Structure formats: C-alpha cells, structure tokens
C-alpha cells in the first residue's frame, strides 16, 4: 500500500465517515431525539447551548467529562473501568459497518450482517456486566432486567433481520443495500419485519416502553447507578452511537440505505445526505414510540415479545420464504 492511499484510508477512519463524523452524528441524533420528544410533549426542550440548543448534548458530554471520577468501595475495579471502554469501542466498531457514503461501509466483508447482530447482543451483555460490576442492589436488578429483556426481544430481532437477508439472498450489508435498487424492502414484503425491528431496537436502546433496566421511578438509574464522570459520559456516548447504529441499520436493511436519485460525480455527498434523512426518519419513529407509551413491566415485556413480536417475525419469515 502506498503512503498516499494509507493516509487516505486513515483520514477516512478518523474523520469521515469514521470517528469524528460518528461522534458528531451521535450528538446530533441525541439532540434531535430530545428536541422532537419535547415538541411532542408540548415543551421547549434544549434551548440555550447553540442555535435551538443543538450543542446541548456536547455541553452535557463535556460537563460529565469534567466531573469527579468516583469509584465506590466494593466494586469490581477491572470491570468497572473496562465496561465503559468496551461499550464505547464496540458501538463505534459497529457503526463502521454502516453503509454511509456508498453502498459499502468503511468495513465491509462477507457476512458482516451477522457481526452487526452479534455486536448488538454483546452490547447488552456489557450492560449486564456493568451492572454486576458495581455491586449495588439497584444495579444488580437493572442488570438482571436487561438480560431478561434480551431473552424477549433478541429472537424476533434476529428473525426479522434473517428475513431481509433471505430476501436479498445474502448476509452482507452492501449486497443487501444494492439489491434494493428497484424496491425498498419495507415496501417489498418486509413491513412486518420493520415493525418488529423498531420495537426490538427500542428495547435494545432501553427506551420507553422498554426502559426497564434503567427505570427511573423504580431503580433510580438501574445498571448505571454508580457510574459518574468520565465513565458515565462514555456510556452515554455509547448509547447515542448505538442509536445511530440501529437507526442506520434499519435504514440500510429496510429503506434502501444510502440509495436514491444521484447526480454522477456527487455520489458520496448525496448518499450521505440520503442516509442521514432515512435514519432520521427511523429515529423519529423511535421517538414517537417513546412518547406514546407507558413503561411496561418486565414479565409483560417478555410475554409481549413471545406472544406478539415472535409470531409476527415468523409470519414475516414465511411470507419472504413463499415469495422467493
């Protein structure tokens, strides 16, 4: 590899569509989520930092970084330090798989869809370890709940992703995206799969009605109750990047990813814009779901997933199977 192409690749990873771009996107998505949620609730939302409060997530992030770093007595120090780092690095790694500026992601290889789904489960397992590491009554209950929830939503999520893969006859994100040139899969037979994916994503992100692991009124902050300062900042950033990842994955699998009408020569810019518009559409749906419902109870979540989400996902799978 020549020095020039090496530098080009390095700049791609660091700036666009790598770390810096993902960081900005994550903060922007958090702002959009908060602002839209506030509008739905007849509030103003973030207002002071920057125009329309757009810098508020950044301000929160910096504030958390500058806070005192407390390690309580009795915590498992290794896990307590490692889990925020793992959470952040895994979620950044996951976003590199997203097709943002072309039909291929920055990382693209045969079978990367499998890796993407596995990473989602890993992130949940890290949540569990983070809760157990801070040996607190509330955090242990939160960690336990995040696993119970995983039992509920993971299988429907996998089946809805598998239906898409079956439809495209591939487990590679880039070929799934390029096979949607004619018709997006949401307009194809995968509308049920999209609904299942949205609910599972909501559960994965621990948002209402599935925010059991960190239910404020019950467990104060749940699994992250003992984390302060830098560690909490990392967890929050990881959550936002996961939000970008799930919105982007939904856009790539069901809404044709970055595809759209293009002028030749400007593909990367137009693709990026299409990608952001589509994933923000998914984000808006997630926010509306968050504003519309009350929090469910843990047994209700598991039974809801097995009674409704799983049959829906299986029906979706059968529809796709019969069509091809």
């Amino acid at each position, binding site marked *: 590899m020549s020095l020039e192409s090496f530098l080009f690749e390095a700049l791609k990873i660091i700036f666009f569509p790598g770390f810096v771009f993902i960081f900005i996107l994550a903060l922007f998505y958090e702002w959009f989520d908060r602002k839209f949620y506030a509008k*739905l*609730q*007849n*509030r103003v939302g973030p207002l002071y930092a920057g125009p329309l409060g757009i810098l508020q997530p950044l301000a929160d992030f910096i504030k958390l970084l500058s806070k005192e770093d407390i390690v309580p007595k009795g915590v498992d120090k290794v896990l307590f330090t490692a889990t925020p780092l793992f959470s952040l690095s895994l979620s950044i790694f996951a976003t590199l798989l997203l097709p943002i500026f072309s039909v291929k992601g920055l990382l693209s290889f045969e079978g990367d869809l499998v890796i993407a789904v596995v990473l989602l489960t890993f992130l949940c397992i890290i949540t569990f370890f983070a809760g157990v590491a801070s040996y607190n*009554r*509330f955090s242990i*209950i939160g960690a336990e709940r995040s696993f119970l929830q995983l039992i509920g939503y993971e299988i429907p999520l996998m089946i809805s992703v598998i239906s898409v893969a079956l439809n495209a006859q591939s487990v590679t994100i880039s070929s799934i995206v390029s096979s949607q040139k004619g018709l997006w899969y949401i307009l194809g037979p995968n509308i049920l799969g999209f609904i299942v994916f949205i609910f599972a994503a909501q559960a994965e992100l621990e948002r*209402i*009605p599935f*925010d*059991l692991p960190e*239910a*404020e*009124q*019950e*467990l*104060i902050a749940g699994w992250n109750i003992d984390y302060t300062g830098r560690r909490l900042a990392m967890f929050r950033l990881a959550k936002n990047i996961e939000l970008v990842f799930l919105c982007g994955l939904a856009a790539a699998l069901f809404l044709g990813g970055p595809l759209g009408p293009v002028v030749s020569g400007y593909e990367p810019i137009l693709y990026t814009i299409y990608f952001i518009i589509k994933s923000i559409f998914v984000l808006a749906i997630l926010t509306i779901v968050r*504003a*519309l*419902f*009350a*929090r*469910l*109870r*843990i*047994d*209700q979540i598991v039974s809801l997933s097995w009674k409704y989400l799983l049959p829906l996902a299986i029906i979706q799978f059968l529809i796709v199977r019969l069509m091809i």
Partner: protein
Amino acid sequence: MATFDIPIGPQHPALPEPLLLKLEVEGETVVGVDFDVSYMHRGIEKLLETKTYFQGLPLVERICGICNAAHGLCYTLNVEKLYDKEIPPRAQYLRLIVEELSRIHSHLLWLGVAAFEIGFNTMFMYTWRDREYVMDMLEAITGNRVTTEYSQIGGVRRDISPELADKLLKTMNVVEERTKYYIKVALTEPTIAKRTQGVGYLSPEDAKSTCSVGPIIRASGIKFDIRADDPYAAHEEVPFNVITYDSCDVFGRVVVRAQELLECVNMIRYALKNLPSGPFRIKLPMKPNAGEALTRVEAPRGELLHYTLCEGTPKPYRYKVRTPTLANLGALRAMLTSKGRYVVNIGDVPIIYGSIDPCICCTARVQFIDIKKDKTWTWTLDEIRNRSRRMRV
C-alpha cells in the same frame, strides 16, 4: 429463595417527599414492607398553640400545599363551631367553589404524577399544562396560586364578581373538555391498562378494616365521602354523585379521580348559577367560647380531620390534625403485601405508592423514642385514648 432488602427512599426519583419504604424482595416480587415516615417533623401542632385562632390560618394552610384549601376550610369550620354563629350562605357557596377548584387541580396533578410513575411522561406534561387553567382561576379568585387562605373565620376573604364568574364558567368548559380527553386516554391506552389493572389490589374488607379514606376506599366500591355523609359547605344544596368503582385496583383509582373531576366541574357550574346574594363574611370576636370541636372535610386525598380544644382564650389549648395520607398508610401496607394473584412486582411499587396520592409532609407520626434507653415504641389507638382521657380530667 433468598430475600434481600431494597430501600426505596427517603431520597428517590419516584418519591416527591421523604419516606422510607423498606421492601423485602424475593427476586422481583415484594414479600414484606416496612415504612418510616418520620423524616419531616415540622411541629405545626405545637406552633398553633402559640398563636391565636385568627393568626393560625396561614400556618394551617402550609400543612399541605396541594390541599391547602381543604386545610383552611377545615380549620375555619372547626373554629366557627366554637362560636355558634350562622355563616352567610354566600360564603358557604364560595367556599365550595374554591374547594372544588382545588380538588380539580389536585386530581389533575395526581393524574400527571401517576402517569410519571409508570413512565408515561407525555401524559404528565399534558395534565400539568392543563392544570394551569385551574391555577390561573384560583389566582384570579383568591389572589394566590397555592396557599390561598380564601376561607376565613366568619366567611371568605373576597367576593366573586359577575365578570369573574363568567370567566370561571368559560374555564370550566375547557377543563371539562380536557378531562374527557384524559378519561378517554386512560381508559383506552393499552400500556396504561396493562400497568394499572389488577395492580395494587385492595379488597373492600381490607379497605374497611384498614380505615382507608377518599378515592382509595371509593375505588374499592364503598360509598364513603364526607361531602355526602357529613355535608359542611353548601353540599346539601349542590347536587353531586359519589363516584365509586369496584375494580379495587389502581385502575379503579384512576377512574374514580377522573370521574370526580367531571363532578367537580358540574358542582362549580351549579354553585355559580345559584350563588345566593348577601354578605360574604361576618365579623367574629377574638375569643371563642370554651369547648372542643371536631370537623371532617373531604380533602382531595380523602377525609381530613381537625380537632381543637379551647379554654375560652384566643389561643387553642390543643390543636390536632389527622391527614388523609396517614389514614391510607395501612391500606398501602395491605396493597404492597398482597399474595397470590395480586402479588406485587418491584416495578409496581411506585404506582401503588403513588395511587394513594401520598403527602408525607402533612402526615402526623405516633412514634416515641427514648434516647437514654435507646428504645422506640408506638402507642395503639386505645392507649392514646386512655391517656388523653386522663389528661383532660
């Protein structure tokens, strides 16, 4: 299975006020509960003995910010019993109007808090926004949003002008429309139904035996409302229904409170249309007659009880307040420790606790601590009764 304790409170996001709920938990189910409400002793009863009856009113209103109208009303009714004077009917009607307005604001506030306890933040924001209509009207009538001090000994502080009455009637239309919308949401929204139906079960027998009051006992299907049983401010003349519901759970309490909102609106409309003319206040002397008086008022949270013992001086010899939250704590224990079909999950604790509309800071305590011997004990009702008799003789 091993059990472990989870302390909810005294500082907790679900609790607006300091209370310690010591939950004994087996996995996710609650098997035992212990309370501690003694974090906020303010000595109001003692302080009342140092003030004259006329000076005591602002203090009494500060027992509870939300049911301040009920406290003020109960206090004035209680003191007026010592005078043997007829209170003008216009004052009675005006008192009823302000009391029902404060009931509307309290119930709307509770609806929001209950929605917040089950994580339904959108409804919380909406109900609190619409509560502002009522707060504005309270301010227009009494001059203050909370701690209104409207009811005075001998009448009320201000009269309602015809223009203000018109405005109030118009606001009632808005409130009625919004309330109907919330009733629709509460009855049809599936996640609310899932979180409230069959949760916090209180059988009618338990409701009676734990002496619960207010919307709690009415949601267990028992008709118990001081406004109907022991009318105190024009309640004989203003028609209204006592709302009951027989589901005995949190859902029933939501329905009872929501339906009561509509009743309040109708009562205010009737009272405004049939407002008697005449004076709204009479002057009473500083010194009441010697004697004792006991008054019950239906506060938004349930039966509120005030007692005073007067020796013919301008200051009370003893003043005693029993707030509805104290009466409902027994019912709360019964709800949290239900077994079998209605066993309580940790996730249900905030909404069950919220369903009694708790107001810990106004709750009186009966616990004694001997620091020298490091001993705490409580008195039963009978012991208190015996001792009080001895003191009075």
